[in-house]
């Protein structure tokens, strides 16, 4: 589904953010991306849908390499959800926001409406179409943020710290939602208890490199490994 080969990225100011990343993610596979702040998690996510273009190496999404000609299909295929829902939800109403992706994919209006209703239903936010984001709780906004990409029927979801800042009940709801979605996922997070519940596979990123890639159980049970990468025991 998603294939990263020898991906490197250097910021314009010369900082090396990603170094020789190799990653393969199968259809429907749920992967947690963990590691300290500044390890390159967000930078990596921004590469998955081509917002950042790699300086060297290659990314293919569903068999298509990311290039100028394929960028629009890639963005429909990889649904990117940012950490702050106030950045993700930029329209005045929930409906407009969930419809933004499908409309810009060039779908006809009937289809768009159907997709909006389905996506909101999937995240349990039916009936919120006409609501405004500033009238909603953080948990509700996070759910709608996920709906804004589900309406584009992506094959992969890339989520940046989805559980950050949520109260226990909203966090529980989010975990159940992530478990119920059939898509492949790459989720950056510090929430190791969520990792244990949702993600069979974990990738640890440290200083721009893949430091560990394997079954979540292996790392979650290994106190020394957790300690080394500054992670919390669940």
């Amino acid at each position: 589904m998603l294939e990263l080969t020898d991906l490197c990225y250097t910021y314009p100011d010369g900082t090396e953010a990603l170094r020789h990343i190799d990653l393969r993610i199968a259809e429907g596979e749920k992967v947690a991306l963990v590691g300290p702040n500044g390890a390159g998690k967000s930078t990596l996510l921004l590469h998955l849908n081509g917002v950042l273009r790699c300086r060297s190496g290659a990314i293919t999404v569903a068999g298509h390499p990311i290039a100028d000609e394929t960028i629009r299909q890639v963005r429909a295929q990889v649904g990117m959800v940012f950490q702050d829902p106030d950045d993700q939800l930029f329209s005045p109403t929930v409906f407009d926001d969930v419809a933004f992706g499908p409309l810009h994919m060039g779908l006809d209006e009937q289809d768009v409406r159907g997709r909006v209703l389905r996506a909101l239903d999937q995240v349990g936010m039916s009936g919120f179409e006409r609501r405004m984001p500033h009238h909603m709780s953080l948990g509700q906004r996070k759910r709608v943020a996920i709906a804004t990409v589900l309406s584009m029927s992506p094959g992969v979801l890339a989520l940046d710290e989805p559980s950050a800042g949520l109260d226990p009940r909203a966090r529980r709801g989010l975990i159940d939602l992530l478990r119920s979605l059939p898509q492949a996922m790459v989720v950056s997070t510090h929430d190791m208890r969520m990792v244990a519940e949702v993600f069979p596979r974990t990738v640890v990123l440290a200083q721009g490199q893949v430091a560990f890639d394997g079954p979540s159980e292996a790392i979650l049970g290994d106190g020394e490994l957790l300690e080394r990468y500054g992670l919390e025991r669940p």
Partner: protein
Amino acid sequence: MTLSTSTLDRYIDGQSPIHGLDARVKLLLALAYILAMALLPPGAWTGIAVSAALLWWVVLRSEVGLRTIITRAFVALPFALVAVTLVFTRPGAPILRIPLGPWVLTATDVGLTAFVSIVLKSWLSVQAALLLTATTHFTDVLYALRALHLPNVLVAILSFAYRYLFVMIDEGQRMLRARECRSAELPGRRGGGSIRWRAGVVGQMVGTLFLRSYERSERIYVAMLSRGFSGELRTISPRALSSVEQGLLLVGGATMAGIVLVSYFV
């Protein structure tokens, strides 16, 4: 929910037929009403009374509360003071002399008529606009503006502005609160610094807010790109107005035109 949300949103929730009316119809009718108020000649008391009765009947049907609308409409009252002078400057038959030390102010009938007319007409116009705001989600007003062919760029800017108004005001309020928490005064000393210093503090807050806003707009742009934005804004096209709605527009417009015409010629 934040403080600003409740203070800023003037929409009053309800299920009335006025709430259910299409925003385009409401916007156009409110404009027609305000235009008619502006066109009414001074001293057209019957015209003003009929218009007021008409508006208040609609307000009652909207169930937002006549009292709310009327009291909120006093917002424009300070401005009426600019017009008070009409009473003493318009030539006409003197009705009252106010001696003021060495000077005498002379109120005239023409002046008084002009002043009272302006205040009443302005007050009713504000009520019409308030009724529109109280019964219409601002997002629907935005749809109406788009449907009425306001350029897309402007509607887009207004939409973003409305969406982020609340986010920005929350940030601004957090800054003000932080300033208040640190504005201590020692006993026996005057705190607060000079006006220039205080203005400088506000200026820095403004600058900080600007940079945060700029950074947010960058993140929003990336979020838009991620969902397929490529420079052209697409929206769902508006539905056509039904014949009932068109009829309502026609009747409302004709009524206001009638009130104005009758006031001039009767």
